[in-house]
């Protein structure tokens, strides 16, 4: 199988980048997209060209490391799939593929297809947790959680933090990511004590990182490899709005939501 790649090459965060064309005839329909890049890179190295940098680790769709745009779609054409699990059998022999990094001001490009997503960690650090130090909490079964609630919390908790939602959003909003964590913890009794402060702090952090506002377009949901629903954004907005009302104002200024 032969494929033509147009890949974004950018040497450093501050260097200008450009699309470069490569071609390889050594592709195989059973390969994953990342294995295709491995093969291409082996060819490039042998020719003395620096290999394409891309982020990856688990290669089984769970760590959230991988991700880039393929022909304008985050993680490529197959729904609910990360690029590491996207096999070439979904492309035609001789097809031209355009690979570009996530584009968002809160995700600066580091090199080629690799971006910096540390802003996601800072959003979690702002409140995406239950404050329980390791020690001796009550017996796990002392807290009964109805199965449907637990299942819905798990649906939201499945987020892998890959950033596709941001890349797909015309406003580069991180609302799906942030909403997923707020929803996961907000649906569980353990998450209630800090529910308001969590929503306030996480949303403010998200806005402060330079992510855009949610325009309810739903592109994020469409590309999410874990199928997280935009319902989580509604929950986030509700928690944030509720918390903003009861919060003792520090100043009189009104504040934007997500």
């Amino acid at each position: 199988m032969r494929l033509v790649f147009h890949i974004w090459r950018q040497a450093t965060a501050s260097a200008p980048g450009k699309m470069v064309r490569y071609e390889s005839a050594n592709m195989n329909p059973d390969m994953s997209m990342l294995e295709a890049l491995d093969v291409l890179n082996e060819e490039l190295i042998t020719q003395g060209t620096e290999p394409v940098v891309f982020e990856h680790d688990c290669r089984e769709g769970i760590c959230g490391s991988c991700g880039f745009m393929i022909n304008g779609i985050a993680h490529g054409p197959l729904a609910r799939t990360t690029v590491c699990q996207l096999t070439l059998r979904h492309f035609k022999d001789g097809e031209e593929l355009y690979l570009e990094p996530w584009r968002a001001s809160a995700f600066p490009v580091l090199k080629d297809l690799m971006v910096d997503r540390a802003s996601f960690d800072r959003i979690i650090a702002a409140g995406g947790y239950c404050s329980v130090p390791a020690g001796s909490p009550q017996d796990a079964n002392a807290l009964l959680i109805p199965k449907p609630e637990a299942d819905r919390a798990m649906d939201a908790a499945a987020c892998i933090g890959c950033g596709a939602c941001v890349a797909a959003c015309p406003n580069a909003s991180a609302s799906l990511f942030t909403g997923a964590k707020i929803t996961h913890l907000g649906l569980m009794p353990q998450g209630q004590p800090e529910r308001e402060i969590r929503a306030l702090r996480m949303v403010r952090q998200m806005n402060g990182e330079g992510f855009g506002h949610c325009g309810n377009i739903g592109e994020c949901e469409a590309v999410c490899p874990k199928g997280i629903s935009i319902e989580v954004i509604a929950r986030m907005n509700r928690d944030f709005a509720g918390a903003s009302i009861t919060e003792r104002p520090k100043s009189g200024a009104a504040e934007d939501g997500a």
Partner: protein
Amino acid sequence: MKLDSKIPGGPIETAWDRTRFENKLVNPANKRKYEVIVVGSGLAGGSAAATLGELGYNVKCFCFQDSPRRAHSIAAQGGINAAKNYQNDGDSIYRLFYDTVKGGDFRAREYNVYRLAQNSVNIIDQAVAQGVPFAREYGGTLANRSFGGAQVSRTFYARGQTGQQLLLGAYQALERQIDAGRVKMFPRTEMLDLIVIDGKARGIVTRNMVTGAIETHIADAVILGTGGYGNVYYLSTNAKGSNCTAIWRAYKRGAAFGNPCFTQIHPTCIPVSGDYQSKLTLMSESLRNDGRIWVPLKKGDKRSPEQIPENERDYYLERRYPSFGNLVPRDVASRNAKAVCDEGRGVGETALGVYLDFGAAISRLGEDKIRERYGNLFEMYERITDENPYKVPMRIYPAIHYTMGGLWVDYNLQSTIPGLFVIGEANFSDHGANRLGASALMQGLSDGYFIIPYTLGNYLASAKIDKVSDSAPEVQAARAGIQDRTKQLLGINGKRTVDSFHRELGKIMWDECGMARTAPGLEKAISRIQSLRQEFWKDVKVLGKNEEINQSLEKAGRVADFFELGELMCRDALTRNESCGGHFREESQTPDGEAMRDDANFSHASAWEYKGDNQTPELHKEPLEFHYVHPSQRSYK
């Protein structure tokens, strides 16, 4: 080198309590005066860093990924064991302890394992309090399943993503400490050497993977939670970045390496499809609860599975092990798969595969029930193989999955270098020669949340730790050593890529130090690895420079270490002339092909001491004593 295991002795039930009481405490006001380095941010490292931060220590945590949330623990699917006995089916701490010692084929320390079983109970409480969304029953209680050959239902799970959810729990606790300023996180930073001063671990040398800066970090103690070394085989279920460099560097600085040859081969992985293959994907072992494993009775039977009638199928596990059937432990299941493939009865294009068939379960329970139990796994299988497992049986084959070996540690999880602690898969401590399913997550979190906070405190409170400056000669020398090595790798400019070397090393390891091992094979492997290593240092091609993101350079450094570790693994496998757990020496088997242990000669943990490059390392033995679970031949018949 003298091995002192510091096993507390006395009644095993109270050993850990007594140890905790006897441990010295660090005054709360003094904790912030101590600097602690944690390398790795998975279940072990992440939970340790978070907990030490909570206690008030000054923690620096390092990971090579872009975020601590991506550590390879995230990929664990099946579940986590705990002796809660919520199902009232006869489980207890003692039974989990017993199963783990027996499952490890009597090559682990009883006292460590007992403590692990005790802590298992607290882990579930802790995780639930953090908001980990474990599976629940309709009444709201936690759901359990039986897993990996256990005869009780003690496994807690969060769909097929238990590792992910537990890791995110630890990660969130860690982020909270980062936010509070008690932990400073260094992502995209790789540890390349350990700094030892006056015989104590005092810091690490790192490379910033974005700028290439080689930096040193000084601390009062260093904790390694850097995972396993299964990628020495190139193809494994480990994440691509998982590597041995941190523990290998520590070994070369004086930490003994325990049982390097003890590797686990997981029976249910998707078979290799071509030589471009970059990693192997595990299918959770929970599938064996409902799937039946078989191959055709006839050699070379190329018919498609549905054309093979019942009476021409060999459900070989059910036939050979009537009481455990498809649920025999991992090592037994893997070896049997290899055996039937060696007989020429393997399935699929490569004939290196066996069927895992859900036909019977689907007719018994209905497709919906199976979808509810394994939906995401079936989906993943189909995505990779383009085959629908609801219709055609899955094809599976064993793959390298976990390494029970690792740095040797005493009961306090301290290595032979004072001040260097090793936790999680990176140490050798709890699983003996074979790890039971759903026990890796348990060990990582037990070490990180509940053991290291006590034993580290004891070390800091009792050791005399002098002040060290960044300009100390040992620090300078370690930094210079890494700078030179980096220059050397970049300067070779040969003809072969790093990956091509890694694949070749992996093939040698899989063929000679994989599922079945022989003395002549291991000897051959040692000499082949040595010459391949020489070729690597003459002919590897690493483009680019150090002062940039350079993934080839990162890989080259890791592969260089894998060569050395691979050789040590073969050496260890060669000296252990018995079969135990995942280590199968063809010379040591019963007439019907089962592994045969040799307790008279090998009831010990091997601890290897580095003696210099190109010198034969020295083998030390820690005798194992069994006061509670008496060694018996494991039988799953």
